[in-house]
């Protein structure tokens, strides 16, 4: 047990010294029925892959959880209605497909606390093993960057669209899990560029 923990510790330490620009990233976004992992559910999961600073749309995925019971939030917001749910997949299968990327990709969320909280809960509940080697959070990266620049951070300054606007990235109107995953991936690329500015960028700098 300790040995496994130590192994993971050293692997992580080594990983943090690697070049952030050549990594493979799995950028994930969830649609949820609420904010509490204990009582709310995952409506859909979307992910896109970044390889060598290049977002591969051919490998993007969006899967609806067909077992979702309560579509409590407005379906207009998700763009997912009850009839879409019927066309979805079983959550265990979705999680298995998602976790198959964990071994060779670093996870990225915008606000990992919420989304990873739900996912961890789901992985445990469905008994799917999931050990991400590293989790990055564009929300956190932005927060740290603003802090370092001595900015006061307001409540709305760290939303996905506010962060994107800061980099001059295009405004995306719709809030679909796949669009948000894409939006997060583009934000990560812009952040990497802004922080590295042509210099070497170690993964540790993104934590």
């Amino acid at each position, binding site marked *: 047990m300790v040995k496994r923990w130590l192994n993971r510790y050293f692997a992580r330490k080594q990983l943090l010294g690697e070049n952030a620009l050549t990594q493979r990233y799995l950028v994930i976004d969830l649609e949820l029925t609420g904010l509490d992992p204990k009582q709310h559910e995952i409506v859909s999961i979307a992910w896109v892959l970044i390889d060598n600073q290049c977002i591969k749309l051919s490998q*993007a*995925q*969006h899967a609806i959880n067909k077992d979702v019971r309560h579509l409590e939030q407005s379906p207009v917001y998700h763009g997912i209605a009850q009839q879409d749910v019927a066309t979805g997949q079983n959550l265990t299968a979705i999680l298995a497909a998602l976790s198959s990327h964990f071994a060779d990709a670093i996870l990225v969320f915008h606000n990992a606390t919420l989304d990873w909280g739900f996912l961890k809960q789901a992985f445990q509940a469905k008994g799917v093993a999931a050990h991400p080697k590293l989790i990055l959070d564009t929300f956190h990266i932005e927060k740290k960057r603003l802090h370092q620049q001595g900015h006061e951070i307001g409540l709305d300054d760290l939303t996905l669209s506010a962060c994107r606007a800061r980099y001059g*990235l295009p405004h*995306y109107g719709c809030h*679909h899990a796949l669009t948000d995953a*894409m*939006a997060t991936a*583009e934000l990560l690329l812009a952040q990497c560029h802004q922080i590295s500015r042509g210099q070497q960028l170690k993964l540790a700098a993104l934590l």
Partner: protein
Amino acid sequence: MNNEQQEVAQFVLAQMPFSDLDSSATDYFVKHLDVIYLTRENQTQWLQSASPKLFLIRSGLYDLVDAKGDVITRLAQGDYFGFPSLLTGEAIKNRLEVQKEGIVHMLNQDAFDYLRREYKPFEQYFVRAHANRLLSSHYKSQNDSWSERKISELMSRKAVTLSPDASIRQAAKKMKEHGVSSIMVTEYERLVGVVTDRDLRNRVLADEVDPLQAVSSIMSAKPKFIFENNRVFSALHLMLKHNIHHLPVLDEHHKALGMITSTDLLRQQKSDPVQLIGRIYKAHSVTDLKRYAAEVPELLRSFSHNIDDISLIGKLLSGLTDALTSRLIYLFQEEHGAAPTSFSFICFGSQAREEQTLHSDQDNGLLLPDDLSEQHQDYFRRMGEFVCEQLVECGIRRCPGNIMASSELCRMSISDWCDKFFTWIKSPTPQAMLNCKIFFDLRFIEGSTALYTAFCEQLTRISRNELFYAAMATDIKSNSVPIGLFNQFKLEKDAKQHKYIDLKKRGVVIINDIVRLYALKAGIRRANTQERLDALLKHDLLNNHDVYNLKDCWRFLTQLRLRTQINEEGLPSNCINPDKLNSLERHQLKEAFYLLKLAQQAAAFKFARGSL
């Protein structure tokens, strides 16, 4: 899954050519996209010749720069780049200068090729964009002229120098020895002054200065100079600005290399054809004229190899014909006495448009005052006959349609000419339209400009007739551009089953017709198509972009047309077999025809709306 990439799909669908395509094309495109954040630092990672890609800009600002560092175009949201390499398989020549980094969509060769195969408009769009870019870059590269050459290429003579303590007489002797009109005064190989013939006259002889005095006392000290690596243009500029005729040439260490004179520069400007025209204007007999005219074909052959701009050849030949005509009129008056009244000798058709070829025939006429006595009419009859006959002798064929000053129908008073034009305008029969195409391109050659101007004014007035414009536009529309739906060439066949495209009849003529119509409407009194187009830029009949397109098409077709004169298959003259062109030229030709078709439709719409 694809339709779930809503933001990307929406954006792509709003762009050409996807906005014109089935949504399945957008789906395919989106599904195969890579998305990058393009920055100054990482651009070389994406622009690699080994794996060319189509780039579509989503955000940011980039300048496309060619190998020489000139900005080709600025790229922003919705613009594509990278397609030339995908289309031609050639290495990437251009690079980007990132003004503002942003999101760029990227498609690889396989996906691009799939879309080209499956969606014809997709193919067309990029081929056209490529051809457009080539046309415009081709335009830029035309500016290589003699004035861009380096001084060192022009300078032949070695430096003639002497030291400042040498006497004035020694300077004069040395100049005589070397047969030069100026000498450089140097000290330790560095230039300190210049003495010219003119200095010897003005500062020595006229002022009774002792020729044994040191040359330094009369030289122009600290003279202007130029470096061997400067352009000829700079030398010309310096000379004109300071009104000097001798310019010392130095190397980069200021060592005197030689002298360049205004005569050296003039010699550069004066090409053989210009000299020939000069000789024609000075000829004293018809025999001389004929001898000079006989030199034209050979001259043209040697000349056409070393000029960039083919349209010059038409100008040159027309210039020669003008000169011959003028001189014949002069010689006629020498022999038969000066003309009893004012007159204008004018030309029509290709000579007026300055598009003559070696095979062009005569199209000319005489414009005379009203109410001439019979005696005077007889004088001009003889003049017309003399000029036309002698032009034939000089190798310019008789006009099969008898549009010549020797014919009564083309030797008329202003009023009669106006009546003639008026008849055509009033009843635009096919024959009348044909006449209009020839006679409305007219140019003054010799005689009274006042008479000619008066005639043009009347002509402008009577041609202002909407029904006439409509008839011309309809007539233009009836001449089909040889390009079909889906951008395929429409070929003609001759008796021997050769397939070809007639570049003159189906291309240049249509442009000329369209431009003539607009020029008439705008009241532009010029006959040359390029000059008419230039003048049209100042009117708002046609937008400038369309004018430039027509100019480009005209140039391209004219250029290609010249090649047909050395054609190998025995096709009719001015015809070309598109299979013999390389793929780039084929694309350009298609593009030219496509633009022409649009211009034709636009003209028909503008002028003939009511009658179509």
